[in-house]
């Protein structure tokens, strides 16, 4: 029998590198945990993003916060929901078929909430009489706020489609409907307000990508 020796050239055509495209959904672990250990806080935040192109994602968060703040002179409870929508830009060049992210982005945020003034102290710097504490139990409902967020964060793939993420946010209040003879001291989604119109926040997320299709890198 004749022996054919064939020189088999290794096929140099590589398997094409692909990126996964799908919808990624997750939750904020910090707010989830805080609802257990902080008896003044109850809330959750669901995060999601959807890949549009190689580097751009449509992203958003939706959540609910009920928090009681016990300041020196005031004690109040804020209760409401919020939604934030925007885009993320992945600045990280992934090697091989890694799907990690280091990104920047922005959000437009909106919240609808109510505030209840539980108690307050009347400030008198003469200090002569004992400070009066008043319990008005006054509820202010139908409050709302709009703001912009600048986001910076990372998302790392732990294993198969599961991501751990961390982001920091700088917020700028656009407009808010203030209660009468009080103020918006905490806005769900925006967090604590300050004298100016800026605020800050973060989230710590665990999310999962539901793959829809793949595209060449």
């Amino acid at each position: 029998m004749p022996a054919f020796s064939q020189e088999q050239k290794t096929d140099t055509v590589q398997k094409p590198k692909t990126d996964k495209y799908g919808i990624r959904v997750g939750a904020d672990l910090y707010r989830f945990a805080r609802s257990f250990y902080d008896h003044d806080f109850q809330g959750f935040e669901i995060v999601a993003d959807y890949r549009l192109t190689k580097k751009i994602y449509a992203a958003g968060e939706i959540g609910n916060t009920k928090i009681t703040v016990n300041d020196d002179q005031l004690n109040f409870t804020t209760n409401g929901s919020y939604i934030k929508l925007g885009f993320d830009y992945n600045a990280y060049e992934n090697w091989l078929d890694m799907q990690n992210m280091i990104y920047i982005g922005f959000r437009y945020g909106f919240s609808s909430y109510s505030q209840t003034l539980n108690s307050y102290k009347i400030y008198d710097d003469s200090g002569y009489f004992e400070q009066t504490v008043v319990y008005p139990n006054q509820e202010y409902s139908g409050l709302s706020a709009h703001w912009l967020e600048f986001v910076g964060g990372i998302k790392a793939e732990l294993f198969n489609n599961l991501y751990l993420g961390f982001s920091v946010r700088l917020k700028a209040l656009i407009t808010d409907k203030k209660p009468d003879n009080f103020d918006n001291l905490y806005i769900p989604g925006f967090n604590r307000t300050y004298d100016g119109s800026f605020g800050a926040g973060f989230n710590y997320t665990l999310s999962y990508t539901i793959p829809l299709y793949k595209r060449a890198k």
Partner: protein
Amino acid sequence: MKKIITVFLLALLTAVSFWSCEKDDICAEGTVTTPSLIIEFYNRDNHTDPKNVTFFSYFSADLDTIGTINGTNHIEVPLRTDTTATTWNFRLGSSQLGEITYNTDVITFNYETKELFVSRACGFKSNFTLNLQNGTAPDPLVIEDSEDEEGLWIQEYTIEESNIENEDEVHVKIYF
């Protein structure tokens, strides 16, 4: 492009850590909060002449005594924010032949209160409105002799401003 993004991320992180540090809000001194009642003393025989008090002290209920005050005709009288009346003891001393004799009058101020929001750090303040004279409510000032039974040294008063919102103006003038 990468440099811009790195700089942006660092700037963002710095800004956020700055804002995340919960600032301890303190009610700044000078912020207009609950005002004290401002009283000025004038001469009974000539209402435009300011008259300084002598060996003067004042206290409310069993709280601290403010004074002894000499050489001024201007005092600040705190009012209670938890009720609509505050009683003060005004003790005037006069020196005669090296000895000081005292006369204490008891004044009750009657008013309405209004609570107003100031800020997160200060909370709320109270403003007061002295009652109208000859109304159905108690008079804005009710003056009575004290246990010393020395008679009243406060003979007359006028309400200059019944809305007590700040300490920049005189609210009550007392003539003696």
